[in-house]
């Protein structure tokens, strides 16, 4: 029994291996943080921009937005990454694995967040628009001061869920040689013939995303107001 346990720790929690590959995992954490930050900021900003454009109700533009959004919502993120990384060089662009992963996941987050923002904007009662416009506020002022604050409150829960889900997709960057957490962990695993680095990788994801999940909860309660 004791022998089993020793074999288990030696395999999965090997201190020597862990110590050796800790710097690699940490550098992977930095890459994951950089990627995640870029994806969240650009993806959500682009999604909001598309939702605002869509609210202008210019029909051909809206069709275009809907097509783009539905495209990126249907494609698996890995397919988008591979298309950009292996496809773009044929038209003379050769984005790095990092840039390919960033762009792909940002596009996917843009698509989902556009839909979420749009749902939020359209769920605000028509009467809010009418009241604001009747006092002389312009379309843009009404959108910014009256509609968006109410829409944001409704979008926070689905948006944080989706953001977390897509940001975890940074692990897909391994496929195109991005040295993020999973990439570092799996190369450490093949170099050491020991899966302990994978456990470290999992721990690193937990340390990274658990606070995000908790922060999301806090933001949700902060954005709630009494009806």
């Amino acid at each position, binding site marked *: 029994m004791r022998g089993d346990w020793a074999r288990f720790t030696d395999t999965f929690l090997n201190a020597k291996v862990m110590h050796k590959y800790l710097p690699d995992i940490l550098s992977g954490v930095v890459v994951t943080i950089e990627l995640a930050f870029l994806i969240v900021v650009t993806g959500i900003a682009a999604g909001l921009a598309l939702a605002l454009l869509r609210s202008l109700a210019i029909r051909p533009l809206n069709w275009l937005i809907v097509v783009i959004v539905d495209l990126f919502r249907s494609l698996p993120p890995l397919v988008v990454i591979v298309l950009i990384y292996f496809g773009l060089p044929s038209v003379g662009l050769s984005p790095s694995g990092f840039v390919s992963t960033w762009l792909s996941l940002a596009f996917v987050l843009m698509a989902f967040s556009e839909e979420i923002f749009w749902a939020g904007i359209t769920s605000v009662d028509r*009467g809010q628009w*009418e009241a*604001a*416009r*009747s006092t*002389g*506020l312009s379309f843009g002022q009404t959108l910014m*001061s009256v509609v968006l604050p*109410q829409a944001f409150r409704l979008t926070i829960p689905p948006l944080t869920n989706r953001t977390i889900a897509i940001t975890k997709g940074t692990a897909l960057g391994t496929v195109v040689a991005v040295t993020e957490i999973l990439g570092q962990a799996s190369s450490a695993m093949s170099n050491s013939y020991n899966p302990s680095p994978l456990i470290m990788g999992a721990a690193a994801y937990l340390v990274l995303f658990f606070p995000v999940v908790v922060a999301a909860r806090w933001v949700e309660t902060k954005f709630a107001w009494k*009806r």
Partner: protein
Amino acid sequence: MNRPIVDARGLHKHFGSLHVLKGVDLTVAERELVFVIGPSGSGKSTLLRCLNRLEEPSSGSVVVDGIDMLDPRTDINHARQRIGMVFQSFNLYPHMTALGNVTLALRKVAGKSRAQAEALGRAALERVGLADRAGHTPGQLSGGQQQRVAIARSIALEPRVMLFDEPTSALDPELVGSVLEVMRSLRESGMTMIVVSHEMGFARNAADRVVFMDEGAIVEAGPPAAIFESPAHERTRTFIGQIQRH
């Protein structure tokens, strides 16, 4: 008769195949209180909403305080400040306090500083008897108080005319009085008002003129006593009979 504040002529409105307004003329003089009554679907609300162009008339003309509301060169946002509107469902901004609701347009449209806007906003809340509720959000106010905040939001902009679209229809009966009280004091201050409502008692003793609409047209108009006691048209008589039975 003073010069008209509101001068609407030949208003038509189509919603698809529905012909909601069929050539309505409405002229309202300064300081006049006009009551618009009629069965639901008669076009009363649509008429009101055409006056500040929340609804685009299909044809006709609307001039408010000398401004051609339908002229594409008219700055509609500027013009709308002169036309207050109060809605059946209050439509207060739920994420703002009462004072925030009242000061938003003062700051964004009338270009007042925060301090000026808040002073004007508090004065407007005072006029509707809610000075002590400035920091409350709509969710913390009763329906009657919410509607009075909505009235304050409009009068803070010092409009030339106020439009009321069934202001008491969504209120519990015991809260109606406080809103009518505010409307009465507005009237006494000389505000020009167009009111779509079924508050016949209020119409009787506050209105200068009652306009009866049916099927998208004005059937008849006159002083409240004439319309309520001796209507000229059968349709008016039937409608008033139905209303007064309740």
